[in-house]
């Protein structure tokens, strides 16, 4: 029983990280109709840059965390111009290829220039020194608590931004009807950059949380999380923020169950299988609307 509970907690932690990756990816779908395969790679590079900052400052946590956040924002914004002209011409298929290119370049950069391609470990102090919290039968690390708490906070702030602020409304209007939004005088370029900046903040937060919960970063991390992110985006319905959140937490729990109760190698195949069944049944995704 306590193994089961521990796997549920693990699942929620992994699910929170998936949720933020899916949220960021979906936000870019909403903002620019870009399916940014390289988004998880931006998280990975930001972690690597953060590791560099940590190892050059004698493991100064504040510097490390701020560096990861800033790197996430900066790199995400830097990719915006790569897509803008294509999106203006409605060449959406082309954006997928550009995003793939971003992913490959970032993977190569990290595997060639960071720590000679060897996985980089974060200092233990970053994830609460391994201290445990006990609650009845189950115990979990402080890092787990931080991940879930920060994840929830990030979602709340994002919803507030999108639904209660002028720029958030502008992003949603642009997503709903680009032509009308432009007639209303909402600037296409600036609004897109705001959207990318917010997705970048999310990327930075995910980077910090992954550094805390996984404890290390390597070049392959980008691909593995990007693939899962894409599955979840399709699974929930492209651009569906709420559906993405629910699916992500669900997948996190299901995955940690599968890892424990199934032979490990099968968990990926199971997820792609489930995805394909969902797509056959509901091509718009589990939560997507028909139009």
């Amino acid at each position, binding site marked *: 029983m306590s193994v089961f509970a521990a796997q549920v907690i693990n699942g929620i932690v992994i699910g929170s990280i998936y949720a933020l990756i899916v949220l960021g990816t979906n936000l870019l779908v909403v903002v620019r109709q870009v399916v940014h395969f390289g988004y998880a790679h931006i998280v990975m590079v930001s972690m690597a840059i953060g590791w560099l900052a940590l190892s050059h400052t004698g493991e100064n946590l504040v510097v490390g965390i701020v560096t990861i956040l800033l790197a996430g924002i900066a790199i995400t914004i830097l990719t915006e111009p790569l897509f803008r002209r294509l999106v203006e011409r409605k060449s959406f298929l082309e954006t997928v290829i550009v995003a793939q290119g971003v992913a490959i370049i970032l993977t190569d950069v990290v595997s060639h220039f960071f720590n000679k391609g060897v996985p980089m470990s974060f200092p233990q102090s970053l994830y609460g020194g391994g201290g445990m919290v006990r609650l009845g039968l189950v115990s979990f690390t402080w890092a787990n608590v931080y991940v879930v708490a920060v994840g929830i906070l990030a979602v709340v702030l994002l919803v507030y931004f999108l639904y209660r602020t*002028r720029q958030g*409304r*502008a992003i*949603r*209007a642009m997503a*709903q*009807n680009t*032509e*009308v*939004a*432009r*007639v*209303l*005088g*909402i*600037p296409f370029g600036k609004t897109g950059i705001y959207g990318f900046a917010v997705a970048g903040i999310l990327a930075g937060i995910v980077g910090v949380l992954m550094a805390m919960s996984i404890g290390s970063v390597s070049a392959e991390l980008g691909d593995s999380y990007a693939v899962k992110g894409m599955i979840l985006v399709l699974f929930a319905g492209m651009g569906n923020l709420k559906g993405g959140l629910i699916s992500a937490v669900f997948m996190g729990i299901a995955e940690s169950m599968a890892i424990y109760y199934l032979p490990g190698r099968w968990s990926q195949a199971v997820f792609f299988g489930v995805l394909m069944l969902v797509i056959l049944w509901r091509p718009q995704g589990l939560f997507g609307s028909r139009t």
Partner: protein
Amino acid sequence: MSSATSAQAILRVSDLWVSYGHIQALRGINIEVHEGEFVVLLGSNGAGKSTLLNAILGVHTAERGVVEYMGRDVTRQKTEKLVAAGMSAVPEGRGILADMTVMENLQLGAYHVKHKANEQIEKVLERFPLLMERRSQSAGTLSGGQQQLLAIARALVSSPKLLLVDEPSIGLAPLVVDEILGTLAELKGSNQTILLSEQNAKKALQYADRGYVLHLGTNAVEGTCAELRCDLDVQRAYLGGSDAAPESGTISSQGGEK
């Protein structure tokens, strides 16, 4: 450009050419709109009315010619700059953001209002009590006429110096068309400058001050609404003219059907 005293021209379009790929949509259009005027652009489908409005608003780029707004050359200005400078539009097909609430639609109209945006929205809502009632309803649940009123209200939130209205009567019942055009006439009464594009010439000429008839991207005729209404040749040639008879019977053929 006949009746114009150039001093208070809010908008002056001179020799404007616009094309989409190989299609030449505008071939040297000239129009002027003065402060407080209600001017209508008439002409059949494809005459270039919407293209002209979109070119004025910077949505389409002009190949040749000049658009002057408040005495400044704004020919290649971006839309957001023009909206910030007091141009405001009711797009063709209303352009309501259906998944957002009535209030959010109005707030988007206030995107460029730097000071007291909420007060502006309240002021506009007072003018449209129906929207006030439904402010938290999603805009897609409004009827066609109500959506058109919302689109107009949204354009008014920024207290525009020039209001561009594109084909508001499309898809609306004749009574509702009268309500919409009546609303525009009321606005004109409070000194709002309006440039309207409208296929339903008969109705539009009842409400506006002056009109331009466009034909295949050129200026065909212009004059006061009284002149245009009485000119049977104009009626016949450009305005779906066989209906010199009373208006009721033929309106539906001009896009008045529900």
